[in-house]
C-alpha cells in the first residue's frame, strides 16, 4: 500500500512539472500553431541557469527568478527573431527551425556544462521529509505538488477570468476574427510565447532538485510534453492539466511495476485518445 | 426510385436548427434548384447531401441505396459528384492532371507500375472532358495560371469527369462576370437531361433558367416546391426575398 501511495505521490510531482512545462506549449500551439521543438530546451536551460546562479549566490529564490526570467526573455527573442516571420500555414518550417535550435542548444549546453548530472539543492526549509498521515514523503516533492496545483489554478483563472486571458482564448478559437475586431494578435502572440517559455524555465528550475539536470533531459522531457499535448489537446489549460496527470500516472506506475514497458506506457493513453478524439481530450483551435 | 431523395433531413447545431425535416425527391435527369434567402439553410443542406456534415436526423438515398452514414468519399464513389463554391483545384498540377485525377478514380487508382497517363481509356475520357469544357488547348498549363473563369470551368469539369449519377453544384455562378455567367449557364444547360443536377444558388435568375423544378428553403424548411413557372409566380417568394432586402436596409 505504501509503495502505491509513494508512487502516486511521485506521479503527482511529475505531473505538476509536466503541467508547468506543457501549459505554455499547449497554449502556444493552440494559439499560434507553432510547435516549438526547442520548448524543452528552455526547460533544460532553466535548470542550468538556476544552478549557475545558485552556485554564485546560494539563493534558491534568486535561482528561480533568474531561470524563469531568462527563459522568458529567450522565448521573446526566439519568437521575434525567428518565428514571427512564419505564417500559420508554415507549420513545417517552424518545426524544423526550432528543431535546429533544439540541437544547437543541446550541444552548446554539453560544451558549457559538460556531461554530468547536476543537481540543485533545495532550500533548507524545503528539505527533509514531511509527515502526511502514514506516509513520509520528501518535503520538496510535496512542495512541487502544491506549487503545481497553485499554478494550475492561477493559470486557469488567468485564462478564463482576465481580459488578456480572454484575448488568448479568442485567438485560440479564431485568429482572423480576433484580429479583425481589433485585438493586437501579434502582441498577444509575443507575450504568450514569452510567457510559455518562462513557464518552461520555471519548470526547469523547480524540477532540478528532483530530477537533476543533464544532457538529454531535453529530449526525454520532449516526448512526455508532446504526449501531454496530444492527449490533452492543444490550446487548453484544463486539457494540459488532466493530460499531465494521466501521462505522469501511467508513466510512473509502469516504470515502478512493469519497467520493461517503460517507454511504451504513454502510448496507450495517446493511442486511445487519438483513436477516439483526434483533437485531444479538450483540444480546441484546429 | 428517385435519383436522390431525403426523408425528414434535419441538422441541429448547438441551439440552432439549420435544416428541419426536409423531404426531397429528385428524379433521374431532373435539374432541381434549391433557393432561398441567406440563412435559409441551403449551405447546410448541401453539406448534408455531399457528406461534409452528418445529419441529426433523417435519411438520404442515392438511387435505391441509403447513404446517410456514408462518408463523403464513399458517396462520391457511388456516383454523387459535387463542385465547390470557391474553386478547389490542385493548383500545382496541370489542367490535364487535375482532370486525370478525377477521371481515374473509377479505374485503377492504386496501380503503381504504369504511368497514370498510359491508361488509354482514362486519357480518352480526360480528352473528351477537356474538349467539351473548352480547355483542351490549355491542358499542360499549371492550374494556377488560369483565369478565374477558367478555374470555375475546370471546377465543374472535375466533377463531370467522374461521370456522376447526381451532380451537386454549389453556387456555380458565384463570383463570375456577366459573360462568364452566360457561358457557365450555357454549359450547364447542355447537361440537362443527361445528368441529374441539384444546384444551390443565391442567384434566382440562374436557378430559374436552368431548373426543371425548384425547392424554396426558408428558415431550414421547404417552404414551397414546384416547377419553375409555379414557383416564380408564388407571392411568398417575393415576401421572403423582400423581407431580406428590408432587413438589409434597416441594418
Amino acid at each position, binding site marked *: 500500500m505504501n509503495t502505491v501511495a509513494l508512487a502516486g505521490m511521485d506521479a503527482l510531482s511529475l505531473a505538476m512539472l509536466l503541467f508547468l512545462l506543457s501549459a505554455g506549449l499547449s497554449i502556444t500551439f493552440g494559439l499560434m*500553431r507553432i*510547435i516549438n521543438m526547442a520548448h524543452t530546451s528552455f526547460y533544460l536551460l532553466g535548470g542550468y541557469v538556476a544552478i549557475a546562479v545558485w552556485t554564485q549566490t546560494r539563493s534558491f529564490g534568486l535561482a528561480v527568478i533568474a531561470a524563469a526570467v531568462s527563459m522568458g526573455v529567450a522565448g521573446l527573442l526566439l519568437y521575434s527573431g525567428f518565428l514571427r516571420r512564419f505564417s500559420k500555414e508554415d*507549420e513545417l518550417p517552424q518545426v524544423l527551425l526550432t*528543431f535546429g535550435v533544439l540541437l544547437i542548444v543541446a550541444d552548446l549546453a554539453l560544451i558549457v556544462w559538460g556531461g554530468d548530472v547536476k543537481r540543485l539543492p533545495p532550500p533548507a526549509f524545503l528539505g527533509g521529509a514531511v509527515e502526511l498521515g502514514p506516509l513520509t514523503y520528501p518535503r520538496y516533492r510535496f512542495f512541487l505538488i502544491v506549487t503545481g496545483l497553485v499554478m494550475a489554478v492561477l493559470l486557469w483563472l488567468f485564462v478564463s477570468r482576465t481580459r488578456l486571458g480572454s484575448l488568448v482564448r479568442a485567438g485560440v478559437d479564431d485568429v482572423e476574427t480576433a484580429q479583425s475586431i481589433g485585438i493586437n494578435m501579434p502582441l498577444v502572440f509575443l507575450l504568450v510565447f514569452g510567457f510559455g517559455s518562462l513557464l518552461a524555465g520555471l519548470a526547469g528550475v523547480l524540477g532540478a532538485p528532483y530530477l537533476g539536470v543533464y544532457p538529454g533531459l531535453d529530449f526525454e522531457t520532449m516526448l512526455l510534453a*508532446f504526449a501531454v499535448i496530444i492527449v490533452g489537446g492543444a490550446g487548453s489549460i484544463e486539457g494540459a492539466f488532466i493530460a499531465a496527470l494521466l501521462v505522469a500516472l501511467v508513466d510512473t506506475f509502469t516504470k515502478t511495476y512493469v519497467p520493461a514497458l517503460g*517507454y511504451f506506457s504513454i502510448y496507450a493513453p495517446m493511442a486511445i485518445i487519438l483513436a477516439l478524439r483526434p483533437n485531444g481530450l479538450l483540444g480546441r483551435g484546429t | 426510385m428517385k435519383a436522390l431523395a431525403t426523408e425528414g433531413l434535419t441538422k441541429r447545431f448547438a441551439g440552432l436548427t439549420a435544416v428541419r425535416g426536409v423531404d426531397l425527391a429528385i428524379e433521374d435527369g431532373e435539374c432541381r434548384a434549391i433557393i432561398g434567402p441567406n440563412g435559409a439553410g441551403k449551405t447546410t443542406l448541401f453539406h448534408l447531401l455531399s457528406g461534409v456534415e452528418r445529419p441529426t436526423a433523417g435519411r438520404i438515398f442515392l438511387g435505391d441505396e441509403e447513404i446517410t452514414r456514408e462518408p463523403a468519399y464513399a458517396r462520391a464513389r457511388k456516383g454523387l459528384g459535387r463542385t465547390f463554391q470557391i474553386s478547389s483545384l*490542385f493548383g*500545382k498540377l496541370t489542367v490535364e492532371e487535375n482532370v486525370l485525377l478525377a477521371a481515374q478514380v473509377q479505374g485503377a487508382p492504386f496501380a503503381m507500375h504504369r504511368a497514370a497517363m498510359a491508361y488509354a481509356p482514362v486519357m480518352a475520357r480526360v480528352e473528351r472532358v477537356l474538349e467539351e469544357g473548352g480547355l483542351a488547348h490549355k491542358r499542360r498549363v499549371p492550374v494556377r495560371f488560369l483565369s478565374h473563369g477558367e478555374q470555375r470551368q475546370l471546377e465543374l469539369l472535375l466533377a463531370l469527369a467522374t461521370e456522376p449519377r447526381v451532380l451537386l453544384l454549389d453556387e456555380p455562378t458565384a463570383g463570375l462576370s456577366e459573360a462568364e455567367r452566360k457561358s457557365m449557364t450555357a454549359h450547364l444547360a447542355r447537361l440537362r437531361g443527361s445528368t441529374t443536377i441539384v444546384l444551390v444558388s443565391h442567384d434566382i435568375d440562374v436557378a430559374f433558367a436552368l431548373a426543371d423544378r425548384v425547392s424554396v428553403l426558408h428558415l431550414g424548411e421547404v417552404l414551397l416546391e414546384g416547377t419553375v413557372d409555379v414557383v416564380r409566380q408564388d407571392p411568398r417568394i417575393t415576401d421572403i426575398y423582400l423581407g431580406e432586402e428590408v432587413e438589409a436596409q434597416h441594418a
Partner: protein
Amino acid sequence: MKGLPQVWLDYPRAGLMLRRTWALPVGLLALAVAIVLPFFVQPFFVDIMTRVLVFAILAVGLNLLVGYAGLPSLGQAAFLAMGAYTLAILVKRTGLPALVAVLAAIVAAGLLGALFGLIALRARGATFLLITLALAQSAWAVAFTWRAMTGGDDGIGGISRPTLAFLPWSMEQARPYYFLVLIVFLVLLWGFSVLVRSPFGLALQGIRDNELRMRSLGYNTWLYQFVAFIIAALFGGVAGVLRAYLTEAVTPGWAEVTPSAEALLMVIIGGPGTVVGPLIGALIVVPAGQIANFFTNRWQLVLGVVYVLVVLFAPGGIIGLLRRGRGGEELA
C-alpha cells in the same frame, strides 16, 4: 498538407528530372563517376560512397511521405533500425539463410511502418509530425533497453556480409559491396520514379495539394497515405539491411532522432517532391557528417545550424534555388 512552404509546392508534379534537357547529361555523368570513381580511391572512401547511397535510399523513401504525400515524418530512421536489427538478430541467432533474413527484415520494417501509420494518421500537420517523433523515440527506447533482444547499448556486432557464390568477387571487400548497393539503389530509384508517375503516385500528390477535394472525388485518402507510409518504411528497411551489412554491426543510435532529422534534411536540401532530390541531399549531408565527425564532436551543433540556415534561406532546397535561378516554374 497545410504546412509545406509555398515554394516547396512549386515543383512540377511527378516525373523524372531526366525529362529536362540539362538533367540527362548530368545524370549520365554522375552515373559514370559513380561507376569509375571506386577504382581510383581508397576503400575507406568507397565505404563513404556506399554510405551515401544507403542514406539516399532512406531519404528517397522518406521523400515519398514528405514531398509527394505531404506528410512530414521524423520517424524514418526507426524503419532503418528495424530492418537492421531484424537482420542482425536473424543472422546471428538463427540459421536462416541470408536472403530469408533480408526479406524478413524488410517486411518487419514495413510492418512497423503500418503500425506507425495507423497511429500517426489520426492527425495531420504538426501533430502528425509530433506523433512520428514520439513513435520514433520509442523505437529507439526499445533498441536501447531491451538488452536481451537488441544487445542494448552495445548493439549487435559481427554481422558478416553474405557470400554471393555466383559472383567471383567477395562482398567482404569495399568495392564489390559498393557496386551491389549501387545496383540496388538504381533499381529502387527507377522503381520510385515509376511509382510517382503512376495513378497511385498522382493520387498522393493530389492528396498533398488538396485532400478535401480528393475525398470529394471519391478517393479514400487515408488509405493512400497509409500505403505510402508502408512503402517509405520498406525503403527504410532496405537501407537498414544495407547499412547493417556495411558496418557489420548495428547500434541503437541508428534509431535516434538525429538520423531521422538528417534524413529529413537530405530531403529538404535536395528538394522534396523530386525523384533525385534526396540523392543530392545525401551527397551533401553524409560526407559533411563524416567530415564534421572527424574534426569535431559537434556534429549535432552543426546539424542544428544547418537546419536553421536552410529553413531561413533555402526552404526549397538546392533544386529550388536552381529553379528560381532559371526563372521559375517549368512547363512540361
